[in-house]
């Protein structure tokens, strides 16, 4: 019987893994449950004494238990073993009893039983009287009941519904029952998917953090002070109902256990501290937990979840865009020198960002005003423009950005970071030009430092030499080489600059693939 269960789990662990979204979407439920059961080595085959066998195998499972689902499963079997104790064999009535004890034992051990999980499936599958059946008929009924309960789990646990999956632990347990049944009647498991109508894998992006009304999941275990009355507990319950949801409050003479979702975890803790000593507490931000998950996959912008900040950066060139993306830019408006985007372009990007505050990095002096215009037009939105006038400034500002800080502090840090970077752009002059300061002939190499056209030279080497003399003691030089420049050539340029600046300076070369400028260089 147990062997059948092991085989069933082995076959289906990947399927179960793929549905693992609760409580932690780490996709390992099937593996954990399989490993827990697979640890049972003693007496596979003939079972001389049921009570002893159950006791030994339950201990083996307890020892091997991995993960929440594995622990729960092992406790289920330990409960069964308790019921079997002293019995050489089982009839339907005893097996039913064993299932009930198993389900209770498993539930007792979970600090915070949640419906719609393996615990529900365990309880419901044996919650009716079927003891007039033979053993295989009984297990068949249990399996069917488990399956019916499993199908309802998405209705009980919203997180499952959003991911369009059933509970993975419950599915694992259903597979265990199926395996037990087949083990009993000696009908080996074949790989098949009878619950094929259930979507195979969770899509973590289905959870919109925007509709997480309460951000913090708080769990707390308090040792109850003498003199804490039931009335005080019911006051607490009323208070929690006012400020949160998903409340699981259990208490007895000694302890008070709480799980709640709210926006005021600290107030809750201080209330609890009044009722006794806090033994354990945990506060988790469910929004950030979720964002960590979604950031693993690729998404279109319109589906992005609500968060505190959204960043729009202006960029052109696939490489530069990659850099901005990697640093956390949520939207890219294509544009730059001689291709300035419109306010409308910004507004479109804005519309797709659902977040509290938007920060725009225009990254070009000709785009700052448009960005400011867009910020004005974006009614009802909090939009700030960090007035970066070059790509290196935009990148430095974005590195300084910290999503944990408040808006004003972020703007201050980003602006400060921009002032520490010198931006250089190098390209070839498309026409001749005279100004007070400099004379440029067509096709000469020109170098622009911050906003000023500073160098006009016949060779790139000459330009670099002047540049190296001017930038002085900088620590990090980043060279973004443009479209049409070969990597080898960029490396050569990096080598030249390195020789001119000396060993104290780190030089990083990145394919920016930007148009217009052969090289964009940041020195900081």
């Amino acid at each position: 019987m147990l062997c059948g269960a092991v085989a069933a789990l082995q076959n289906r662990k990947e399927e179960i893994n793929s549905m693992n979204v609760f409580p932690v979407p780490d996709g390992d439920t099937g593996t954990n449950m399989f490993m827990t059961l697979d640890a049972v080595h003693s007496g596979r085959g003939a079972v001389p004494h049921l009570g002893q066998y159950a006791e030994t195998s339950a201990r083996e499972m307890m020892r091997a238990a991995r993960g929440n689902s594995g622990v729960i499963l092992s406790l289920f079997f330990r409960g069964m073993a308790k019921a079997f104790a002293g019995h050489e064999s089982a009839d339907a009535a005893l097996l039913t009893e064993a299932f009930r004890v198993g389900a209770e034992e498993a539930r007792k051990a979970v600090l915070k039983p949640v419906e719609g999980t393996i615990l529900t499936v365990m309880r419901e599958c044996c919650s009716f009287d079927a003891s007039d059946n033979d053993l295989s008929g009984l297990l068949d009924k249990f399996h069917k009941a488990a399956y019916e309960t499993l199908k309802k789990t998405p209705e009980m646990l919203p997180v499952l519904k959003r991911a369009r999956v059933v509970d993975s632990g419950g599915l694992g347990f259903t597979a265990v029952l199926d395996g037990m049944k087949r083990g009993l009647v000696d009908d080996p498991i074949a790989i098949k998917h009878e619950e094929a109508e259930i979507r195979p894998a969770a899509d973590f992006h289905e959870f919109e953090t925007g509709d997480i009304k309460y951000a913090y999941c708080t769990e707390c275990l308090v040792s109850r002070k003498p003199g804490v009355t039931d009335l005080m507990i019911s006051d607490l319950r009323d208070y929690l109902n006012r400020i949160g949801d998903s409340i699981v409050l259990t208490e007895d003479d000694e302890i008070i256990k709480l799980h709640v979702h709210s926006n005021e975890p600290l107030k809750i803790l201080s209330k609890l501290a009044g009722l006794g000593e806090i033994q354990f507490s945990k506060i988790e931000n469910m929004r950030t937990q979720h964002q960590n998950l979604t950031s693993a996959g690729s998404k279109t912008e319109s589906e992005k979840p609500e968060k505190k900040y959204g960043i729009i950066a202006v960029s052109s060139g696939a490489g530069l865009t990659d850099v901005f993306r990697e640093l956390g830019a949520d939207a890219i408006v294509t544009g730059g020198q001689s291709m300035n985007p419109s306010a409308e372009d910004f507004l479109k990007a804005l519309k797709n960002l659902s977040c509290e505050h938007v920060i725009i990095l225009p990254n070009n002096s000709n785009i700052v005003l448009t960005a400011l215009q867009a910020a004005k037009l974006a009614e009802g939105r909090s939009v700030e423009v960090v007035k970066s006038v070059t790509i290196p400034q935009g990148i430095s500002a974005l590195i300084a950005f910290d999503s944990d800080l408040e808006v004003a502090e972020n703007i201050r840090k980003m602006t400060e970071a921009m002032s520490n970077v010198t931006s250089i752009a190098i390209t070839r002059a498309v026409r001749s030009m005279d100004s007070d300061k400099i004379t440029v002939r067509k096709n000469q190499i020109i170098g622009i430092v911050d906003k000023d056209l500073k160098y006009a030279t016949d060779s790139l080497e000459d330009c670099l030499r002047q540049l190296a003399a001017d930038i002085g003691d900088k620590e990090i030089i980043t060279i973004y080489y443009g479209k049409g420049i070969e990597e080898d050539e960029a490396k050569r340029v990096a080598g030249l600059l390195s020789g001119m600046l000396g060993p104290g300076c780190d030089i990083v070369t990145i394919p920016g693939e930007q148009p217009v400028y052969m090289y964009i260089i940041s020195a900081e």
Partner: protein
Amino acid sequence: MNDFILSCDSTIDLTLEHVRARGLEFISYHFFLDGVMYKDDLGQTIPHDQFYEKLKKGADAKTSQINIEEYLEYFTPYLEQGKDILHVSLSSGLSGSYNHAVTAAKELSEKYPDRKIYIVDSLGASSGVGLIMDTLADLRDEGKNIDELYGWVEENKLRMNYWFFSTDLSFYVKGGRITKTEGMLGGLLGICPLMNVNSQGKLVPREKVRTKKRVIRELVARMEEYADGGLDYSGKCYVVHSACYEDAREIADLIEARFPKINGRVLINSIGTTIGSHSGPGTAAVFFWGKKRED
């Protein structure tokens, strides 16, 4: 002989010799390397350099928490010998093991009502907890009893400061033990995020720093800011690394030069296989006593 044991787990990232010399007991985590389970026994089974070589070559490393049964088996013999237990566990912000230890201790308290079993959530990790254990051993040797030590460690554990950086966040991201990753990767630009362990025992990226050279400087600057007495810090300081001894050496040298009153040499350890499964290679950290972690 003491009538109690000072116990920790294999994530304290001290050498076996150190643990033995200080009379500490420990329980092992287990980790999986390409699906094969190994015991984290402070580098005895798989030397750390081999472990990181495998990770660099793409081996898949996973850890598993210590379950209740393992704690029961580990604690019981000491209780049978009539010894009380003070066990300091890896941060509950990083692992569920702490909860399992508490459950096991509760069960055992019923079975051995005369024994004391204290389980402490270190809210920390690696040699930082190692330094806590080392300090506990000092206090034990001064004659403090288990109740005093328990009180002391609960009072002081948040004074252990954990600052670290990584040149490659990919393992942290995969392991999911980091509070935010957005914008922290910056691999193209060579960003090394400077991180610490917060008061809830979680890993928090604090600042994005470009280049290793600068992040090492920042790390030492944080020590100056947070250590007891600043540049006059006179406690011990531990540094760890995952397959980047050179970085650890550089940090230790900087610290020894900067903090002349420091207690002894800065001790350099290798990050073990459990923490290493989540950090991957390229992490260096510094641990010292200082201001209480508050955020």
